């Protein structure tokens, strides 16, 4: 006596449910293979709450650009929280007034006097409420902190100021004097035509002296770099590592610009995840879009792509302080063994120009007639034999874990290089690790060679030669090739001693020839800079010197 018949109406109803389930599974199959068909508006976030979400690529080390040169830190702090004495105009690149309304340069070029802006308010947050506006004391405090060793705040959070050390500004600046409440005077030891440009870079941020006193009373001085106070458009609210940074609008910002209620950095390390979030509308703009996705973004009407020639250089640096790489013949052999054009196609997907030397075409100091090395494995093997390594050697290759314009996927580039070097019997062990550990290993010289790069902070060509290849830049960790060449240093110092453009160009040309002869590093590409955002926001302009500025971004929903 089976029970089938007695509940046949029940099973009919359940059968329809089952068919519903089956159609869902088949929908899974069909839709999965369909290409990116037309899609409706991104759901993203409802309009009831205003805010801009930016998918950044990694955690900032600190919230003070003075002590950390990584672009993540300056993205998260320099342009959103702090202001500088001077700024760059996004389009023309010329220097425009920032917190200093006007400035006067003496004839001998040794003393600069700055007239400061009045009634500029600092941020008021839960952890600090300022009682006075911005004045000269803050500028003095900000400069003295990295200039004068004995300054109470100099050794807070490591006491290292890599950018200023690499330009050894501490030796060029003699003194910073306070004339009155809103005027200061800086005097130098010798002329430096790139000094004004250096004051306009991200790293010359202006901190709050009153906040510093407040913290030293509570004797928690290290908070100055973790709970920042500045005069910029946004004020810091909360940071949770590997998850997000939250800023709220600075109500009394001195520039009247229309800004969203809150700005959020959603930390998403993987670039494909960032791109996916842009498509689903969970992020309004993303950092370092990977080249493969640029074409797809251009095809998508909802996403606006801005492109500008970048002031950057991606290169493959050899650690010249170690055995096989001391000999320039070995370095030349390795450089010849690599086919630069395939790397440009496979990694940059023709969104970069082939690099002949470290100076990009966008800079005025660029000159076309620099000899370029093209792919010649036979000569490479012969050079290796001459240098005594006929049966090759093994070396490690540090591949940068994070994404940057100048090198979108260092890991895949390393794999390509490995297959090329295998042909001249050089075995390569690719090493990559977490970004902080990676940089500390580099500065202690654990690497044989490294795939990394540099993006300029200001328009001055000196910003390429000095931090990358001068002897002073080795301790500060920006000279990855550990290369110290007296003649090269002399040419670079001579270049900044004069103001005449043609003379400086000639000096930089001799510097390029020294690099081409010695090959401490093999320049690979100058990548275009992309800024990508969906149509939820407007007013985001691309900046030639990298970084992202939300000062005059507004929601267009």
């Amino acid at each position, binding site marked *: *006596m089976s*029970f*089938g018949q*007695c*509940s046949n109406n029940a*099973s009919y109803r*359940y*059968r329809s449910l*089952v068919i519903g*389930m*089956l159609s869902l*599974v088949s*929908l*899974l199959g069909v*839709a*999965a293979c*369909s290409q*990116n*068909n037309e*899609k*409706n*508006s*991104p*759901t*993203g*976030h*409802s309009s*009831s*709450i205003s*805010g801009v*979400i930016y998918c950044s690529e990694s955690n900032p080390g600190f919230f003070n650009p003075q002590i950390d040169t990584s672009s993540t830190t300056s993205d998260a702090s320099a342009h959103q929280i702090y202001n500088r004495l001077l700024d760059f105009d996004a389009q023309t690149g010329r220097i425009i007034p920032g917190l200093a309304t006007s400035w006067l340069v003496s004839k001998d070029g040794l003393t600069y006097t700055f007239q400061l802006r009045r009634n500029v308010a600092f941020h008021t947050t839960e952890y600090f409420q300022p009682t006075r506006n911005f004045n000269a004391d803050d500028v003095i405090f900000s400069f003295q902190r990295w200039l004068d060793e004995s300054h109470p705040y100099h050794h807070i959070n490591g006491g290292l100021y890599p950018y200023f050390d690499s330009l050894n500004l501490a030796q060029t600046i003699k003194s910073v004097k306070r004339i009155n409440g809103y005027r200061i005077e800086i005097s130098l030891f010798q002329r430096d035509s790139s000094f004004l440009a250096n004051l306009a870079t991200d790293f010359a941020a202006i901190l709050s002296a009153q906040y510093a006193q407040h913290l030293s009373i509570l004797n928690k001085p290290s908070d100055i770099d973790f709970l920042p106070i500045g005069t910029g458009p946004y004020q810091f609210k*909360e940071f949770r*590592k*590997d*998850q*997000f940074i*939250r800023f709220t609008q600075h109500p009394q910002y001195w520039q009247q610009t229309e800004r969203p209620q*809150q700005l*959020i950095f*959603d930390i*998403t390390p993987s670039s494909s*995840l960032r791109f*996916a*979030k842009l*498509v*689903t*509308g*969970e992020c309004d703009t993303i950092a370092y879009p990977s080249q493969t996705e640029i074409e797809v973004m251009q095809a998508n009407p909802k996403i606006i792509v801005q492109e500008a020639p970048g002031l950057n250089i991606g290169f493959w640096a050899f650690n010249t302080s170690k055995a096989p790489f001391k000999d320039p013949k070995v370095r030349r052999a390795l450089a010849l063994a690599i086919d630069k054009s395939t790397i440009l196609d496979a990694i940059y997907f023709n969104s970069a120009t082939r690099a002949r030397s470290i100076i990009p075409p966008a800079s005025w100091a660029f000159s076309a007639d620099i000899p370029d090395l093209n792919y010649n494995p036979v000569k490479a093997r012969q050079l290796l034999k001459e240098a005594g390594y006929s049966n090759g050697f093994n070396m490690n290759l540090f591949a940068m874990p994070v994404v940057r314009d100048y090198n979108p996927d260092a890991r895949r580039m390393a794999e390509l290089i490995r297959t090329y070097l295998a042909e001249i019997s050089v075995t390569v062990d690719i090493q990559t690790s*977490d970004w902080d550990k990676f940089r500390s290993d580099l500065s202690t010289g654990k690497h044989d060679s490294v795939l990394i790069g540099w993006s300029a902070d200001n328009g001055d060509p000196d910003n390429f030669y000095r931090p990358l290849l001068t002897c002073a830049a080795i301790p500060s960790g920006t000279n990855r090739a550990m290369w110290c060449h007296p003649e090269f240093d002399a040419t670079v110092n001579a270049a900044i001693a004069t103001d005449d453009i043609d003379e400086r160009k000639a000096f930089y040309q001799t510097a390029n020839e020294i690099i081409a002869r010695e090959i401490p590093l093999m320049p690979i590409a100058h990548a275009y800079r992309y800024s990508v955002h969906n149509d939820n926001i407007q007013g985001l302009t691309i900046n030639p010197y990298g970084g992202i500025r939300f000062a005059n971004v507004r929601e267009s929903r």
Partner: protein
Amino acid sequence: MLTTLLRYFNLIVITLFILLLISFSLAFFFPGEPYTNLTGNILLEETVGPLAQAFREGNIFQQFWYYAKNLSMGDWGVSFSTALPLYDKIFQTLPATLELTFYAATLSLFIGIPCGMLAGFLHHKKTDYTFMSMSMVMVSFPVFWLALLLILIFSLQLNLLPMSGRLSLLYDIPETSGFVLIDIINSTVPYRYAAFYDAIQHLILPTIAVSFITTAVFLRTTRRAIVDVMATEYIKTAQTRGLPFYVIFSRHVLRNAMLSILPLFAIQISTLVTNVMIVETVFSWPGIGHWLIQAIYERDYPAIRIGMLLVSSIVVFFAMSLECISRLIDPSRGNKQYA
């Protein structure tokens, strides 16, 4: 009744003790200095504290004793990469995982078991075969591939659902209990309803991804249990006694079937937690699985050690209590001598 409770209580205590022992011995297996693996900071001359002292003397029992004392007092050591105390980090991430596991478990219970009952009761009929073939397909889905498929289709192509995180970061909800829905409900921010709706949207895809496989497993186990019970002698006698069908099914068949599959759910908990940890990495859900796997990449041994100890003790606790409950309410289990 009391003896079973007592027996299970000391079994749970023994097992947790063994887990504690394993987590302690892990510190010695992991590369690097045992003291650093236990507490996260380096054993220097001037580090004070009973544990450091015990390590200097090298007396292992004392080390274990102080380690256990620290654990009970909430000092769970400091993580290598962030140097923040692990205690708060875990209490940020664990509720997220428990929340996702809870929703996935309830979803698969409320879908798996009724369909299993239907399939079992109509066995060897068309509905049964469709259910069985469907559950066979669902069981063989690799969970991370399924999650990617769901993202590809529902987030990227059809753009219906968000694909990452627990809540859109625009909503700043103060974290009280760690469970996102509960936090929203008892938060006083004006945009509460929008936040709630958004949290639900964020929950849909991960819950489906996790519960997809567990539903199929529940379906199959329930069907097998029901078919076995229907074939037993006492159900035949009940039928010959002429009892109406619904009485037989609801009172006898269901109760016996449920009693026989309750202990099997304990094993399902572990596959559920594994699937949740994998789905978390795909949907970047801020749970303990995602955090543990990040800890692996950064070789953060204190985090791995405490994460392992915590997750496995929770899973063991749930499984053992499930087994104890099934032993208490199932009278007939008493006569089968225990293995």
